[in-house]
């Protein structure tokens, strides 16, 4: 495993990229504006692409360069473009009826990070030089998953729910890039294209919602219609 002989420079590059992506998740959690979510997601995807390229360079996995380029293109450009298009067409600029205020969800998010840290500390089995980066990657991965779930559960707008899913997926991807960088290329490509399909499906679903329910907020959908 390449993490067992990692130098301090590599460790600091990996940890700062991971921490920055975690911070961007909090930007998404705290902001009211849908457009900001999409921008934060795009920047996060670029950071993860840079991370993949770094792992490829330091760890000697040439196929990860392909993954990095594909991540930057698909997650960093195509998905945000599609999402911005949906936001523009829907004419919904901000999340108004949140279940939780953004400040309380930030505090909840902080608790989620602590929880993730405790779990990561238990899971970790590496010795000291690699332990920091393993625990950090696990913490960031688990807390991005928890934050994605949090966004899915406290937000009503359809767009924020897509973004919650995408953040969740970004977290898993980030963790896998650091922890198990030798995943087969084909699987990673399949995951990337799956995401594209998820967003396309959600776009269709949102249009259906607008036409048939007259709203994009999932709050209106809790009534049974016979």
């Amino acid at each position, binding site marked *: 495993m390449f993490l067992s002989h990692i130098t301090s420079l590599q460790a600091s590059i990996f*940890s*700062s990229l991971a921490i920055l992506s975690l911070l961007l998740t909090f930007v998404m959690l705290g902001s009211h504006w849908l457009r900001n979510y999409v921008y934060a997601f795009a920047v996060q995807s670029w950071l993860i692409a840079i991370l993949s390229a770094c792992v490829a360079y330091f760890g000697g996995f040439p196929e990860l360069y392909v993954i990095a380029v594909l991540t930057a293109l698909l997650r960093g450009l195509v998905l945000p473009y599609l999402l911005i298009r949906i936001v523009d067409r829907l004419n919904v600029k901000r999340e108004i009826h949140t279940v939780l205020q953004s*400040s309380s969800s*930030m505090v909840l*998010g902080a608790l989620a990070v602590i929880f993730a840290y405790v779990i990561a500390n238990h899971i970790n089995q590496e010795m000291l030089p690699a332990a920091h980066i393993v625990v950090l990657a696990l913490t960031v991965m688990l807390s991005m998953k928890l934050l994605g779930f949090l966004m899915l559960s406290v937000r009503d707008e359809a767009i924020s729910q897509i973004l919650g899913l995408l953040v969740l997926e970004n977290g898993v991807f980030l963790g896998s890039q650091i922890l198990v960088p030798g995943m087969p290329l084909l699987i990673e490509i399949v995951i990337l294209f799956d995401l594209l399909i998820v967003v396309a499906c959600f776009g269709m679903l949102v249009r259906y919602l607008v036409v048939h329910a007259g709203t994009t907020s999932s709050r209106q959908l809790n009534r049974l219609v016979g």
Partner: protein
Amino acid sequence: MTLPDIALQVLQVLGVLLLAPLLQGFIQKAEERVQRSRGPSIFQPYRDLWKLFHKECVVPDSASWIYWIAPVIAFTAMLIVPLLIPVLTDRPLPLSNMGDILGGGMVLTLGSFAIILAGLDSGNVYGGIGSSRTAMLGILAEPTLILVLVGISLLAKAMLPFVVNHLLLGSLSVYWSPAHIFLVLAFFVLLLVETDRLPIHSSTHFEIYMIDEARILEYSGPLLALLRWASMMKQFILYTIFCNVFFLPWGLSQLGTPFGQAGAITSLLLKFLLVALLVVIVETTQSRLRFYRYQELLATGFLLAVLAIVSSQLIGGR
């Protein structure tokens, strides 16, 4: 030639006392310049203080002894804190072992507590509003302050600001570690909140927006001058902690020669110039938050502090 330690300590306090109005004047001037007006001279706060000290004191009938004692307590508290922190010299001087970081924070809060009492004392409506708003802000800001101080103590494994300064000077890897960067950001949020700056406090002086000024509306003459001076000194002290303990630990006098002290004052002013420009940028680009959205900004600060503590535990081995 090195100055005796007592003289160095007196210089620290005098520096805070005499330079605080200059910082206030500079921020006001810079804000006006950004808005394309000329603005007052940067020495205007000195002239204001001079004028206020030569006016007579008008005391409301309903005021009790708290009205008289609060400005003195606030002013004295601000004179005590510079003893405990590295303002010009980067090593502990006489009496600096009176308190650690938390002690300094407590003395700072004591001054603001005295002014809250004074705002309630005279029974004026605006004083009451100002006091209740300040108390609410204090409730929201205090957890972040404590967490930031705990975080920096965990990083340095000591509660003394001097040790933190030496640690950051000594190792660039600690300076650029995520824990430290989060702490700097969290303290910057606190700095904006505690020095009456924009996302929270309004820059226009209408009673309806006032928070800190509303508490001292009843004061006049020399007592008002003391309160104004105390709030400028509080701003200066928080800037000093932000620069010398958190953000820019360079440029302090190590030996204590007169030349070194002059250099330390110059570098302090340069650092404050930088931080004040950052604050001016925030003030120009941000609009004031609604009262019920204050907690969003402060929750961000709280979150950054929590993240700092978590990541300081991750990298704790270094």
